[in-house]
């Protein structure tokens, strides 16, 4: 499975940077969830973000999308600092999906994507009230675009189905379609293949490549390292809030520190650390539940 996929993945490092995080630090009371994280996302690039549970991956997403205000550090899109309001960030062109799917369950698939069109629709309250010709045009445009997107992610047949009734994998895809409806420049995907079987995961991989080919830069959080290494142009490894390693999939794969972060130190060392731990930085901390909004 690996060979054809890597062949599809030309080296895309070195494009113009579109999203830049510099020195992002997030402090929750006494807990430093992110410590001085900096990275650049280049145009048309797919970046993978991996790390053990509780490493701060989702927290980083929340900082990038304005859901959290970082304690220090900045996030900039095309050199312009992003506001600290999720709605405004989305308007600027950064869209996201959620680790635990957050569709609007009692709306149809089409309506979910239409909500995504919200920021791109020119339709004031008065137009909503009067339903004039201009309203009808904007509504028709939005619906057309929605159908395109549903087609793009392969959900056309579910257009009128309630989101809650969709199969799990399709819910994830619908969430991606909804995010794409905001016409983003950067798409942040939080564990897009969680709970999927091998076939669905492969479908998601192809979908992400197709999104990249639309000129959208993508950041993916994922636990499936094989998926990440065959998908991404660059991989960032986050461990306990710190950026441990950043580089091409091959560089990251070979790095002993990554192996250690994932598999843990050899058992004797863990024992020794547990008994000797006095600074509160127990390795068990890595199992802290991921922060979710």
């Amino acid at each position, binding site marked *: 499975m690996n060979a054809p996929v890597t062949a599809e993945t030309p080296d895309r490092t070195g494009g113009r940077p579109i999203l830049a995080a510099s020195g992002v630090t997030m402090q929750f009371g006494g807990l430093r969830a992110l410590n001085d994280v900096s990275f650049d996302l280049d145009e048309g690039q797919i970046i993978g973000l991996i790390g053990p549970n509780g490493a701060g991956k989702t927290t980083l997403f929340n900082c990038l999308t304005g859901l959290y205000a970082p304690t220090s550090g900045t996030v900039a899109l095309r050199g312009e600092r992003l506001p600290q309001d999720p709605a405004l960030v989305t308007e600027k062109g950064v869209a996201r999906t959620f680790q635990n799917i957050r569709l609007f369950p009692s*709306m149809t698939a089409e309506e979910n994507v239409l909500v995504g069109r919200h920021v791109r629709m020119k339709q004031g309250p008065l137009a909503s009230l009067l339903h004039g010709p201009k309203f009808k045009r904007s509504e028709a445009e939005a619906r057309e675009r929605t159908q395109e997107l549903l087609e793009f992610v392969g959900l056309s047949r*579910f257009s009128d189905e309630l989101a*809650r009734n969709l199969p799990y994998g399709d819910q994830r895809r619908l969430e991606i379609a909804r995010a794409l409806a905001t016409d983003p420049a950067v798409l942040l995907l939080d564990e897009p293949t969680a709970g999927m079987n091998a076939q669905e995961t492969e479908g998601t991989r192809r979908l992400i490549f197709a999104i990249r080919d639309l000129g959208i830069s993508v950041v993916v959080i994922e636990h499936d390292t094989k998926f990440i290494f065959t998908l991404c142009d660059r991989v960032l490894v986050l461990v306990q809030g710190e950026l441990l390693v950043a580089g091409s999939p091959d560089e990251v794969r070979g790095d002993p520190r990554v192996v250690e972060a994932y598999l843990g130190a050899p058992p004797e060392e863990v024992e020794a650390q547990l008994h000797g731990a006095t600074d509160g930085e127990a390795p068990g901390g890595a199992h802290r539940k991921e922060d979710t909004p």
Partner: protein
Amino acid sequence: MTTTTSPAGAKSNSPIPAPSGRLHRMAAPLAPHATAARVAGGVLTIIGTYLPWATFVLNEGRYPEQATLQFFTVPFGVTGFRLHLLIFGIAAIVLALVRVPGRGRILRGVGWGVVAVSILNGLYITVEGGGLGAITAAGGAVAFGAIVALLGGVLIVLGATAGGIERRPEWRWRLNPWAERGALVVAYLLLLFLVAAVLTAGGTGGAANPYSGAVFLSFLGALGGLLAALSASGLLNWVAALAERHRVFSVVVLLVVALALPLTAAGNEYWMTVAANIGVYAATAIGLNIVVGLAGLLDLGYVAFLGIGAFTAANLSGAAAAKFDVHLPFALVMVISAIVAGLFGAVVGSPTLRVRGDYLAIVTLAFGEIFVRTAQNNIFGLTGGSNAIPGIPQVELFGTRFSDRIVVGGIQLPAGVLYYVLIVLLVALVMLVFSHLKESRLGRAWIAIREDEDAARAMGIRTGPIKIMAFLCGATLAGFAGAFFAHKTGTVSYESFRFLESVTLLAAVILGGMGTVPGAVLGASLLFVLPEKLREFADYRLLLFGLALVFIMRFRPQGLVPDRHRRAELAHDPADEPPPGGTPATRTEVPA
């Protein structure tokens, strides 16, 4: 982790619902004799209609409508419940023997209708007659009618359940478009007569007709059975589909039909007034439906906006007690009242930026209370305090006062008919506003906020202004209704806008079905017709009313006319829901 698909998955994997629930267990032994039980139930019902129902002549004489012993001996000399039971009984026998699609389900509806009618009348006679003797045997007179009919009803229900409840049949008929429109006209005319019949059932009540409450309830029970049977046959869904296909046409016909109500048996001053009041609360309930039903923001002080609209109108109406000595035309007053109420709505909505859920409900509750106290204390002299603002002049158009009786084309119309026409048009306008807003960018944003506020923000919805818009729009609609209310009743007092009214409005929205227009109207109608009709039960009125609410919520939590979304969410009749897109949702397990 999310496992939202699991209920849907379970639902769609079983096309025929597995028999479950107490009723199914009770009916199980009857399964081999289902047809026999159905026929026997029908026969018993018919016998019940011919048997005497009471062992004596009720104290006040007539029940229903006919004096003396005739009531016990001549079943069809009286219009009323016995005729309904007879029809149900015949229908049950016919359906037991003739195979029609969905007949088990239809029979179940018929059976429940029989049960409801016989229990209601039996109970009423028992209570009024002083005990069980009133419906069994006393002084040589034997009156088992109620018991036999009840037995028949139970047998029909059990027989229907035992034979298996099929999926509701779906009619895919497509007729000539004009034939379909004709069918719609017929359906709406029937609806009109049904409404008139409900309103006039049992008469207007009061001292002259002590049984009106019982007759009305019994009629309602029969109607419930009839509607359940019709709905089970798929007819109602077919009509709904027709209405959907000819949307504009059906809206126009419905409007005409509504305007024709004064020409029916319900066309008297009393019902015109009740209908106008219903209209006021229906319009307000639709406004509240924006806030609660669409945006999901619980507002417990909503009636205050109706009050603000009413007091604004009262002060601009030229009434002697008004603060401002102006007399503006009614149309202008309405617009001003709506704007003022809308502005207050925006003010009250502003805490929604900071508080959510229960806390917001408390804030709105407090606002409602502030309004009532302020009005009670006549602050700034705007509300007249406990003296209220009386003497608000009637609306006039071309020299005709809206409270007068008028003659159109030789037909004498009841007094207050112009107010009725005005409120029908107003409610129609409010409905139009609601459905336009719902089907727009703004409406979708409201629903998205209701569903998941954080996700809505992540989709670029600026939730603050959008939520305030919900309050503003809802309050504006209530303000319109308030201006009408002030002129129709002629007096505006703070007492009309207490907490109980807010609760009733909320109940109307929830009862009717959140997020739908017909739901809010139906809910408001029920909540204001029922108390009118139940006057005979004076002391028990609120108790009965509360019980009715509890029962409806128990057996139909999605409301009487549910939103299609909410229907999917709360319906627990698996046979009603076709599997989504033909593809069952199966994968539900999600690793953390």
